[in-house]
């Protein structure tokens, strides 16, 4: 089928303002939007810039606003979008070039929630693993699946309002460690998340949950953090 691909373009070396360029391509409906971008870059205009790596929804590099909604270009098929496709960079972050945004504020927020395992207690007597039951592991299973694509955070109106709002992706990672029975810094993380830029600014818009390519129930995870904050319980 014939598709029209409208792409957001901005070259910092020549442009003062962004513009859109439209390309007409032949593509089977099983093509992914990433394939279309590669076609334009490979055969029409080599200056088109975008991030991608794995092309299989694992690295989280190619989250883009496709037809007005955040999605991974490598997981979105032409069949899902129809023949008219608009591709734009994620909202709320500076555009470096074309579809590439500056992810620094996103990762700064991520780092704020201590996104690593903390346990200073001595190892168990056998000196091996800190064991966990199947139920304890299942408690935070869903939030281990994040690929840090930023589709959630940049779909959130609170983040659009201020990039210092920690945002859903940071909360997902915080949830992953807060509810891990082996980790010992839950209260520290809950304290960080209770600050002005923390979970209180989540207005349950659900844009994050709808945007997540890993189908993580983000708003639910945030809800669990909010509840843990109020009750002081982690079950």
């Amino acid at each position: 089928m014939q598709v029209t691909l409208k792409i957001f373009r901005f070259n910092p070396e020549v442009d003062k303002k962004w513009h859109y360029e439209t390309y007409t391509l032949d593509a089977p409906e099983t093509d992914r939007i990433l394939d279309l971008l590669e076609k334009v870059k490979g055969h029409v205009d080599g200056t088109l810039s975008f991030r991608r790596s794995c092309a299989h929804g694992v690295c989280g590099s190619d989250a883009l606003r496709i037809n007005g909604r955040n999605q991974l270009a490598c997981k979105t098929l032409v069949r899902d979008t129809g023949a008219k496709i608009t591709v734009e960079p994620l909202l709320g972050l500076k555009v470096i070039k074309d579809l590439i945004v500056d992810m620094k504020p996103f990762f700064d927020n991520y780092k704020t929630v201590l996104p690593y395992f903390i346990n200073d207690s001595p190892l168990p007597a056998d000196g091996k693993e800190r064991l966990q039951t199947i139920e304890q592991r299942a408690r935070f299973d869903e939030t281990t699946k994040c690929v840090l694509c930023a589709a959630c955070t940049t779909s959130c109106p609170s983040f659009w309002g201020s990039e210092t709002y920690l945002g859903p992706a940071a909360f997902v990672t915080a949830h992953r460690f807060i509810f891990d029975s082996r980790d010992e810094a839950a209260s520290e993380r809950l304290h960080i998340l209770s600050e002005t830029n923390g979970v209180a600014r989540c207005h349950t818009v659900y844009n994050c949950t709808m945007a997540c390519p890993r189908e993580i129930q983000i708003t639910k995870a945030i809800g669990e953090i909010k509840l843990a904050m109020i009750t002081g319980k982690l079950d």
Partner: protein
Amino acid sequence: MGLNRNVSLNTGLQYKGREPMLTFVLHRIGGLGIVVFVGTHILSSFIGGQLGHAGNVVYESWIFQIIIFFCATFHAINGLRITILDLWPPLIEHQREAIWIEFAVFIPLYLIAVYVIIHTALGG
């Protein structure tokens, strides 16, 4: 370096968030409507005289009441949905159904109210 792109209201509204985002936007409009209503009320009583009376006429008019009833009822019902989901996070997985229930409650309630307001306004 890079192109600063503050997300304008217009750009934000164009994000295709579907039903949940619609309720989010209507909740804000509802809140704003309530502030305008209460504001007009207080201001009219405070100013008094002819100008105050003009304010009374505005917020007591049936058109204003149809709008304010929309704002207050939607804000209340939506707020209730959010509160319930916030207190029982496991229910959040059913947020779509929760929104359908919300509209199933809101639409008939609002239509009945509009009917009553118009009926009364037209001297019923």
